[in-house]
């Protein structure tokens, strides 16, 4: 490894200003000096609108823990977009994401990905992971919320006979249920795993307002460490139920031993309507300023006494680029509202569209 690095440094004397990886990328697209990449090895359709994409990551990827997610960069019409997806493959194996078509990016992934395509990657992260010590588990999932939990089940159930896992999964119909066959096989094969499907199309929503449904589906749920993943409403309801039970438990101790771990796909800041501005936060400078929707962020920053990089101030020289951390900006030239975390924005022609966080 060390020798390899020395070799790379020697080679870079001949390739500067490029890195040797930039040359190697001519032969293998996974190589890049700047950007972690993966090559798609297999695409497996799951349901009518979901698919699992297996990929082989380049150097720099860290093996994922069951339940973690990764940011995946995809190109749509030449423009890179980043989204976070849970890794559905078991820990210890090549990573895979299971994606449900819900928008432009996920749609392109589900319908347009083929083996050999290059995905852009950020290393796996997240603390929605299995407990350190063996405990009876209850998994509550809804829709595509099954994906991180599937990684946990695949990691745990076949390899740990002492595990005890109950999965309650809700989906609209049987046809919409991702991993249905594999779950049935696992439940057949391993007595330590039990799965209950709940079809909201027939049975309505799983009711968390009282403990009745859970009591019926998994009577010992209070003794289990619970994991929940699904849409926001689903998680809010589950949280409320567990909190209520915990409040009761303080009156009668030991009634609830379980705990609830939830995985929320972070909600985006809503963009401002039309020309509304918002609170601009310069994170590194630790300063907040109210801005209207028509003043370039460059001016906003300068007025606040921040040393903003700047150049032509008319949107042509790109000297003023600053990474966006959160929120949306409006392009003063086109009125287009845009913004993804990490995107470099031209502050001289961009105004706040709602709250904005900048990395400066």
């Amino acid at each position, binding site marked *: 490894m060390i020798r390899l690095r020395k070799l790379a440094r020697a080679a870079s*004397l*001949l*390739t*500067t*200003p*490029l890195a040797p990886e*930039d*040359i190697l990328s*001519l032969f293998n697209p996974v190589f*890049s*000096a*700047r*950007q972690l990449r993966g090559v798609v090895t297999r695409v497996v359709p799951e349901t009518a609108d979901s698919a699992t994409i297996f990929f082989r990551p380049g150097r720099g990827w860290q093996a994922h823990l069951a339940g973690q997610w990764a940011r995946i960069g995809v*190109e749509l*019409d*030449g*423009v*890179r*977009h980043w989204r976070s997806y849970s890794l559905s493959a078991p820990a210890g194996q090549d990573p895979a994401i299971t994606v449900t078509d819900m928008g432009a990016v996920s749609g392109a992934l589900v319908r347009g990905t083929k083996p050999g395509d290059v995905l852009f990657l950020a290393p796996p992260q997240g603390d929605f992971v299995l407990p350190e010590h063996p405990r009876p588990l209850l998994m509550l999932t809804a829709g595509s919320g099954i994906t991180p939990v599937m990684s946990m089940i695949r990691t745990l159930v076949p390899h740990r006979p002492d595990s005890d896992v109950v999965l309650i999964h809700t989906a609209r119909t049987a046809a919409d249920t991702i991993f249905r066959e594999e779950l049935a096989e696992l439940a057949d094969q391993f007595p330590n795993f039990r799965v209950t499907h709940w079809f909201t199309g027939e049975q309505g929503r799983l009711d968390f307002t009282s403990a009745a449904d859970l009591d019926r589906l998994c009577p010992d749920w209070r003794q289990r460490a619970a994991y929940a993943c699904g849409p926001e409403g689903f998680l809010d309801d589950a949280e409320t139920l567990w909190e209520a039970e915990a409040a009761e438990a303080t009156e009668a101790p030991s009634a609830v031993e379980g705990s609830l771990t939830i995985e929320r796909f972070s909600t985006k800041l809503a963009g401002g309507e039309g020309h509304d501005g918002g609170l601009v936060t310069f994170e590194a400078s630790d300063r907040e300023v109210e801005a209207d929707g028509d*003043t*370039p962020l460059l*001016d906003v920053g*300068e*007025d606040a006494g921040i*040393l*903003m*990089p*700047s*150049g*032509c*101030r*008319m*949107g*042509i*020289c*790109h*000297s003023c*680029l600053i990474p966006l951390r959160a929120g949306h900006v409006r392009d*003063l*030239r*086109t009125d287009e509202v845009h913004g993804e975390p990490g*995107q*470099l924005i031209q502050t*001289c*022609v961009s105004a706040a569209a709602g709250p904005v966080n900048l990395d400066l």
Partner: protein
Amino acid sequence: MTIVSDKPDVSEEAPKGGPSQSKASAAVKPRPGALAESGSPLVRPDAAAHLSDEQVAELGRELDAIKDEVLAKRGASDAAYIRRVIKVQRGLEITGRATLLVSKHKAAWVAGTAMLSFAKILENMELGHNILHGQWDWMRDPDIHSTTWDWDFVTPTRSWQHTHNDLHHRWTNVVGKDNDIGYNLLRMDPSQEWKPFNLGNPLYNAILAPVFEWGIALYDLELPDYKEGKKSKEAMTRDLKALGLKALKQFTKDYAATPAVAMLTGSGKQALYGTLTANAVRNVWAHAIIFCGHFPDGTDTFTEEMVEGETRGDWYVRQMIGSANISGSKFMHLMSGNLSHQIEHHLFPDLPSNRYAEVAPKVQEICQRYGLPYTTGPLLKQVGSTWAKVFKLALPPKKA
């Protein structure tokens, strides 16, 4: 689209000194970002004197529409284009350099030197210059981005982006503001005061061409600004350090590491001649193309009165009549980094270069309709024209 700001001038509130401040204050006044949609400058250039305020404003709207049309189409095919050029360039670069390693064979020397020359030209022109303009930033690809790209050229990218993108492109051909008129070395405009030093104009230009990259590196240090106290000592030290480091790397690659490896086959000396030749070929070519951008007959220069109160339409007019194109084949356009479409590049400096060709006829049509010059010609004619100017302006103006 209105970008008007009535904010007080920042340079008055900003603390004096400090590297970034000294740059900012140069860029702040007056603010072209706040160019008016209507009105007129104190003086309109001769070539555009026949146009009314309303006509100039309408011309601006027409050019905006051309830009919007390209922006709407820009996408996957453009991304594929720039990646293809990068691939070809890197292939040429690595094959050329590898071939030079056995260049004691004459055919290998010729092939290796030719490939490396082509690679260096492509890298500087179609890739470096255009990527550093931010033409490809829209892809959001950190590998092809104005903030991360570094080029096979001795001047550090930040320094060049400042003198080129911020200053030259904003103040195109405004005498006293755009130092690209002669690069502080040559007398390239009759309104520049003649000094006996200028007698050497042709000599300086001939010497400059084969070492053009070093000339640009020196120019980007903005030594006159430093002498006049407009550039701080800290900024100077920082820029010198960056240049030193970059020059060391470039020098090591071409003149030490490559010949050293070639010595293994007994081709050390030949490899050194090969890299020297490739750099010189690139320098002469870049010098020729760049001089054809604003110096041939037919291009105008401007006075500071002409930019006082300049509207958005007038800004466009100045870019068009201050620049000149080079006509030629697709290959010529590629090798010039599409700077053969200098007029289109100056109108839309951050549109992807592969789109300039399709924009050109529309721009030419607009020039015709508004009675504005659209200067273009084959390479040799334009090069001849710039050299004629170099010679002519070496001599003092004739007394009337």
